[in-house]
């Protein structure tokens, strides 16, 4: 790679280059429109030099040249403190082949979506609008470094979301189901009857649901919500760049949760929605399982080359960039609570008054350990039984306090897909876990 040699000639102690080619297709079907929203190819490179202890990047949609090396060196100013982990030479090609082919034409895919739209409207005459978004993103990644690492990866992430808005008198309900996978054509990977049933249940729940009175409740977090908790409330705090200013860094080696609590971030999982697939990260590092919390103890942080050196920790392979326009930063992949011994029935049986939180509407956390999630599907639990759906519930709290309140974890386990935003970059992630019982959780309602 000529530009890497040029970087070394100009004095760089390390250089790498990422090439990315993304083939993108997005289809949108609404109550009265069928559109190819996006169809194209995004192609470019990101060259990075480590020059006099500082990083400098040049990213471009053009072909890399010696001028680009000079541009990268020109912006490499700073405090000259960057020290990184170096890796041995390696050549590898990885291709994740889909189990279900994408070999339908655009028209055939739109036909499939139209049928789904008709099925959505047949769920209820109260449904007034629907938005179905289908996407497939074909990634071709190449990585080269001055260490003589050459890694090539090919895989596809695809999925769909269905948003339905229903109206009954003056009450508006809006619910969605979103699925993504690395296993191929998503309309065949997932059972669409189950998807439609879920959508109907959420719409009905919001139309009939009552608002919960704000307060402290025993909460049962279902796998989708547990996943968001693992990701937002714990995982982000374990990203080394955030952790050093947050609460987990100083808690390394300390017990912060009951012994049966284990939280892991994995580069790949054999679950169809584990779309945080990162066999090699964007610094050319092999991914490994990172045990953030092991038997209730803060075990290790998620790192890139810089933070592995800074913390003296073995690289985890968590450096990712949305595309060639962005620098690599520490990101999660597939983050989850590990299952334990209880059954779902045993967990819910002795709850006198509580809430079952089934599906989130996104979440957010701060490095000081506060978190906030919206919930789109929730139920009131009374005397060990589900008694009524709840509408627009929010939960918030402190991660450490909440972890300490975990009383039971189930055997049942699942992974859900998501897209995580950080520093303006969005990357696919998997989140998941079993059912988790939290003795005391702050639940906020909505004034209506």
């Amino acid at each position: 790679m000529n530009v890497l040699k040029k970087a070394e000639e100009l004095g760089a102690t390390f250089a790498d280059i990422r090439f990315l080619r993304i083939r993108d297709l997005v289809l949108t079907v609404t109550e009265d429109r069928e559109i190819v929203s996006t169809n194209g190819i995004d192609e470019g490179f990101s060259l990075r030099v480590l020059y006099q202890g500082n990083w400098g990047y040049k990213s471009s949609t053009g072909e890399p040249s010696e001028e680009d090396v000079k541009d990268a060196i020109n912006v490499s100013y700073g405090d000259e403190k960057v020290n990184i982990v170096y890796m041995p030479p390696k050549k590898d090609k990885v291709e994740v082949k889909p189990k279900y082919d994408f070999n339908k034409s655009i028209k055939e895919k739109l036909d499939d979506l139209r049928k789904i739209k008709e099925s959505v409207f047949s769920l209820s005459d109260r449904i007034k609008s629907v938005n179905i978004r289908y996407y497939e993103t074909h990634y071709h990644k190449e990585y080269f470094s001055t260490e003589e690492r050459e890694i090539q990866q090919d895989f596809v992430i695809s999925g769909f979301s269905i948003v339905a808005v229903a109206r009954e008198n003056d009450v508006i309900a809006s619910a969605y189901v979103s699925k993504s996978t690395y296993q191929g054509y998503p309309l065949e990977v997932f059972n669409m009857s189950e998807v439609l049933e879920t959508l109907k249940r959420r719409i009905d729940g919001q139309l009939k649901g009552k608002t919960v009175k704000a307060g402290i409740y025993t909460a049962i977090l279902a796998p989708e919500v547990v996943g968001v908790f693992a990701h937002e409330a714990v995982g982000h705090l374990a990203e080394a760049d955030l952790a050093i200013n947050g609460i987990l860094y100083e808690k390394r080696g300390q017990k912060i949760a009951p012994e049966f609590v284990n939280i892991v971030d994995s580069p790949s999982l054999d679950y169809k929605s584990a779309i945080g697939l990162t066999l090699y990260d964007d610094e050319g590092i092999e991914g490994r399982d990172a045990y953030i919390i092991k038997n209730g103890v803060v075990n290790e942080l998620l790192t890139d080359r810089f933070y592995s050196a800074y913390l003296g920790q073995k690289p985890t392979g968590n450096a990712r960039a949305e595309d060639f326009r962005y620098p690599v930063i520490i990101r999660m992949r597939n983050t989850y609570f590990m299952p334990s011994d209880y059954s779902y029935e045993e967990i819910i049986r002795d709850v006198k008054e509580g809430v079952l939180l089934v599906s989130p509407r996104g979440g957010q956390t701060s490095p000081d350990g506060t978190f906030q999630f919206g919930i789109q599907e929730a139920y009131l639990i009374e005397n060990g039984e589900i008694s009524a759906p709840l509408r627009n519930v929010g939960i918030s709290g402190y991660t450490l306090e909440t972890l300490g309140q975990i009383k039971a974890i189930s055997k049942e386990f699942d992974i859900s897909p998501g897209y995580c935003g950080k520093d303006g970059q969005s990357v696919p992630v998997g989140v998941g876990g079993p059912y988790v019982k939290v003795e005391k959780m702050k639940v906020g309602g909505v004034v209506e």
Partner: protein
Amino acid sequence: MSDIYTVIQRAKDLGYSAEIFMAELEEVQVKREKQYQNMHIFERGFGLRIIKDGKLGFAYGNKLDNLLDLAIDSLKASKEDKFNILPSPEKVNKMNLKFFDISEGEERIKELMNYGNEIREIVNVISEYYSALNLKVKVVSTEGIDVEEDRSLISFSIAYNVKSDTEVSPEIYEYIASRDPKMLDMEKIEDKVMLMRKIYGRKREKLEKKLTSVKFTTKALAELLVPLFSSSISLENYYRGKTPLKEGETINPSLEIIDNPLMSNAPYSRSFDTEGLPSKLNVLIKEGKVVKFLSNTYWSLKTGKENTHSSSRNYSTLPIISPSILEVNVKEKSENEIVIDQVQGVHTSNFDTGEFSVVASITWNEKEEKAYRELTVSGNLKDLLRGIEGKSGEKEIYGNLYSPSLVIKGINVS
């Protein structure tokens, strides 16, 4: 290699109406955390829209080669829709939106970094981010549109916390951006950081009483009000029943909200929208009444309403509807000692109903100069607009909001 005009002509020769949206960006970024990560970015891309017999085709790429063939593939699959029409040209009055070139921008960043160093003396800085960019936008169509504009933008953001002997504050963010570097008021950022050090240097307290009204700063409004209102004021969402707002309803007689893309130094200013149509000032809420929803060509034709020229996009997507700069005017003045400056979790809101439940992470008592632990703020967009009692202080630009701080009652803060 193809150029824009050749592709447009080729499409025309094949009987298509066609439009190319081009964006070319050059940017220098400095990101300082434990390590510096500085970038020089060059990006060029094209979005091609073609229409024939009411069918719409779209393709994008970083090169023009093969784009037309890809767009034709899209068109063949799409559904006929009589409202798929490209707009005709209208006269554009160009504003000056480029105040520096990229090398000057890089020098200005180096000057701004001195302020970052000064702030590091005051509080515990977690990250600093500087950006200077030049953006060229061009729209050309078979219908005769041919407009081009150069824009500049410089911005600074900083994340920090305040550490005292007993506790650490939540992460606090400050952000400032302008097309014109001379308009960046860095002293104001420093003053704010000093205030935060004073307030968060003391132990945070738990708010014991239920609040009937609070003051939202421009920053907090940009985080909470702007995303909810932007979604709700879209003509597409109005037509599709995905907004709590209704045309003609009076929400708050004291309130006026304008979409104003003509403030040249503001970050989202533009002489034309992304369909190449001239920017115009749109009064959305007048004397408290919802009078207009924002639209683009498609939704204007479909609904028979005015085209507000509010098309927004990047080259990889079709045009959508989006506000430019939302200007909020409130007649009455009002004050409240409880100030909310930062909220988190707005993306968890239900944008179709306007309902939200967020955490106010940065909240303090102005009079007693003490901070509160996190509060939960919940309600819906209409409650938020209806509850505006009055303005406090002068109007400021934050992101795409131009508003004073607002005192709001009637939402649930606990």
